[in-house]
């Protein structure tokens, strides 16, 4: 019953487009008690983290952007979390530190970190916390996007999004 309620709330959150933190309601062990396959049309494909509600810390030379990542319900669908910029930093990037999480890592998962659009991304699947210089010395005052996809066949248990963070260091 609790599981059904959680799922219902999840669908409701998707319907209204809320970035609701659902982490903690599901873990890897829960996924063993049954596979729930939702139609692709229900999958929340993009979450926009609002600068007004997100935790944005600013200090000289760096900016932290956080948001709750998408919950992955379906395979072969790209789910994204957009972390918009809140302050007009003009300095060129010196590194981008990232931290992403899911309630469990499905087989076939690939995670990307993108700068500005999904046409400029790097793969960050192997490290849930790390840093990259791939976007240096581009400007920092653009959105950053975390993108998730599970490339596989069959159905899957939902992998619930957790708090994701990028710290943008610039000169």
């Amino acid at each position, binding site marked *: 019953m609790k599981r059904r309620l959680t799922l219902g709330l999840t669908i409701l959150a998707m319907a209204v487009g809320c970035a609701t933190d659902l982490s903690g309601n599901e873990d890897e062990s829960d996924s063993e008690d049954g596979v729930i396959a939702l139609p692709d049309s229900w999958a929340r494909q993009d979450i926009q983290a609002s600068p007004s509600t997100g935790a944005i810390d600013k200090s000289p030379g760096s900016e932290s952007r956080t948001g709750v990542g998408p919950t992955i319900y379906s395979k072969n669908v790209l789910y994204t979390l957009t972390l918009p910029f809140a302050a007009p930093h003009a300095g060129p990037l010196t590194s981008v530190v990232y931290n992403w999480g899911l309630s469990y890592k499905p087989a076939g998962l690939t995670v*990307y970190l993108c700068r500005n659009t999904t046409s400029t991304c790097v793969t960050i699947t192997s490290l849930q916390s790390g840093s990259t210089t*791939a976007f*240096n010395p581009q400007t920092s005052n653009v959105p950053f996007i975390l993108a998730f996809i599970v490339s596989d066949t069959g159905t899957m248990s939902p992998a619930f999004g957790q708090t994701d963070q990028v710290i943008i260091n610039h000169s």
Partner: protein
Amino acid sequence: MTVSGMRGTGGVDPAARKDRLPSARPASSSGANGIEDRVTLSSAARAPQIPEKFRGMSGQAHADPKLAEELAYNYAHSEQSPLIDLSDLEAGTGPAKYAATGEPVTAESELRYKEMSASLLTASASLYSKEKANGTADADILDKLLSMLGSQSDEFRTIIDLGT
């Protein structure tokens, strides 16, 4: 009056200078009269060749020791990754592609570039440790690391958006 072919004026682009050397000619060889010719490179020509994209950043690092320290550490310890275009994947019209070439990302290509990245990362970390131990300034270490990046194969340079 036009003077061309002036020698000893300085400011010669090392790359252009290298291109003008006869390719089959060794750096040291005997001329027809038996006198040995020697090619001596200026300090500018021996300086690290930093990719164009990073020259501004290098200049900033030389003026800001803290920035130089941060950048040198970052470049020595971060893997250089291919840039990937997900726009077709997002639209559901095609696979992920390499941003620079438009070639689809495959398991084989991923593995090949991963090996190149890992090899470069090992060499970069080793260079960083060695230069730090020698007391080299962080800005100069950064230049060496960026030069190492610039000396990678054309294929790898292209795929990580350094140009060729």
